């Protein structure tokens, strides 16, 4: 474990020294500033609204739920970008550049090197997505006195979701070159999100095939199931028409996928990392 921590520390120092974290912090500050502007403007514009006529809608919950859905989507997207760029060349890319060989010949297992890279990327991405989400929650609360139904499920889902992406990217880096891996992971990410939207359409139009396909996709790429679960948990206690509208939000299908997703996502990450270790172990450098 000490070796894995040594490798993780080295990778983290690289992220700091290459100013990756500084750039991310600056750009994220920009996003949060825009989010704050949008949140205050949105809630201010609601103040002139009275209760709706025919269909009773809780505008504050609608605005708060939609804004936090946006925050969750952006946090996940930026977290995935960060996860991919921190790991996309971890094996083949670093080997092609000659960075990996001096480390691999040390009496450290190749699996340990992968675990070190997983720990390093997770140590950046998990606090990042959780931090961005929680700051967005604070901004939303300050702007419109809106608090989501749950903090733990969305934040935990984001955190575990980016860990699954880190594991997938490490597997990709053992099999593919840097560019091909980056493209592959982003396409998988897009497939997951499309699957969520597909399920939403299927549910509303009552097309079982679409709903089933969406469920299968979201479990195959668990970050999507975790995201759907978190999105659902944000507004789980908002009922009536408002709840239905919020669940139809533009950021993917909000759906409770059950508690089994947590152990599944952990097992999935371990299995993917094990596959990466096998691929790395068999690779001639």
């Amino acid at each position: 474990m000490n070796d894995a921590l040594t490798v993780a520390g080295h990778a983290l120092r690289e992220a700091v020294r290459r100013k990756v974290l500084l750039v991310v912090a600056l750009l994220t500050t920009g996003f949060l500033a825009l989010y704050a502007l949008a949140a205050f403007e949105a809630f201010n514009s609601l103040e002139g609204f009275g209760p709706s006529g025919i269909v009773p809608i809780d505008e504050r919950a609608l605005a708060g739920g939609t804004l936090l859905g946006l925050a969750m989507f952006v946090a996940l997207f930026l977290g995935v970008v960060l996860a991919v760029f921190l790991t996309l060349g971890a094996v083949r890319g670093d080997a092609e550049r000659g960075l990996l060989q001096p480390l691999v010949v040390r009496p450290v297992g190749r699996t340990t090197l992968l675990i070190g890279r997983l720990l390093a990327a997770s140590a950046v991405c998990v606090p990042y997505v959780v931090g961005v989400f929680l700051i967005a929650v604070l901004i939303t609360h300050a702007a419109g006195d809106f608090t989501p139904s749950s903090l733990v499920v969305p934040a935990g889902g984001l955190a575990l979701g980016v860990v699954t992406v880190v594991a997938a990217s490490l597997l990709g880096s053992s099999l593919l070159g840097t560019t091909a891996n980056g493209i592959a992971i982003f396409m998988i990410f897009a497939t997951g999100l499309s699957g969520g939207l597909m399920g939403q359409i299927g549910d509303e139009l009552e097309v079982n095939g679409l709903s089933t396909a969406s469920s299968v996709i979201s479990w195959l790429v668990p970050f999507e199931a975790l995201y759907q679960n978190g999105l659902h948990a944000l507004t789980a206690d908002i009922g009536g028409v408002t709840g239905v509208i919020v669940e139809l939000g533009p950021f993917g299908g909000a759906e409770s996928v059950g508690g089994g997703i947590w152990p599944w996502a952990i097992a999935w990450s371990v299995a993917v990392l094990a596959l990466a270790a096998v691929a790395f172990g068999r690779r001639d450098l």
Partner: protein
Amino acid sequence: MTAVLSVRALSKTYGKTPALEAVDLEVAPGELVGLLGPNGAGKSTLVKIACGLVRATGGEVSVAGAPAGSRSARALTGYLAELFRFPGWARSEEVLALHQRLARSDGGQAEREALLARVGLAGEGGRKVETMSKGMQQRLGIAQALIGDPQLVLLDEPTSALDPGGRRTVRDLLVGLQNEGIGVLLNSHLLSEIELVCDRVVIIDGGRVVTEGRPEDLTAPGGVEIETSDGIRRLPDARREDVPRIVRELVASGTEVYGVRVVSGTLEDAYLAAVVGRDG
């Protein structure tokens, strides 16, 4: 005495392309063995198998008795790759400290300073890799390979980016390693370097060992050149032992003799005879 590197019937195939076939080789403690061969001969593959970067297809390779590539073998091995890079953002001190931790070396600051001094980088511990010349990075790579008192050092083209001064530093360092009982396998295209420092030379071509031996045994005699009053005479078949007789005969025949030089072949001649002659 157990060889620090023992290679027996080693073979390696990439897909259907053979890279090494039935290679046998040994490096004894304190022995400096030069590995020569044309591009694509399999030299780097052999070195990479010895340090665990590449898996052998057949045969046995061991480092001080431990299977090559095993954790215990890697703990005894220092390696400098032909194409390597250290992170540009890291200081040379940090590069060495990272490798000390991974090699479980408890040498600390004293070891880092001693290694930097040994490769001619004393006082450069705080320098970032990205500000170093290629030659300085290569010397840092050699320092990295010597962390943790390895018993076997594998150097793949260690002087390719060095100026003459840097090459001299590395030559002195290699002699120092010999004296310390460390076995060295030196893969290089620089025949003069190999000839100067190596105890033994192994020439590989087409994945097979085509010849091996001490440099002085591989270099064939090149005859005798005699400077006389009639000009320079070349006697290609003459040997050192023939010189007194030849001089006596020339003087007796009234020819003035101003100088005699015994010509010996070079390692380059031996290399070309082994490789080009074989190809031809």
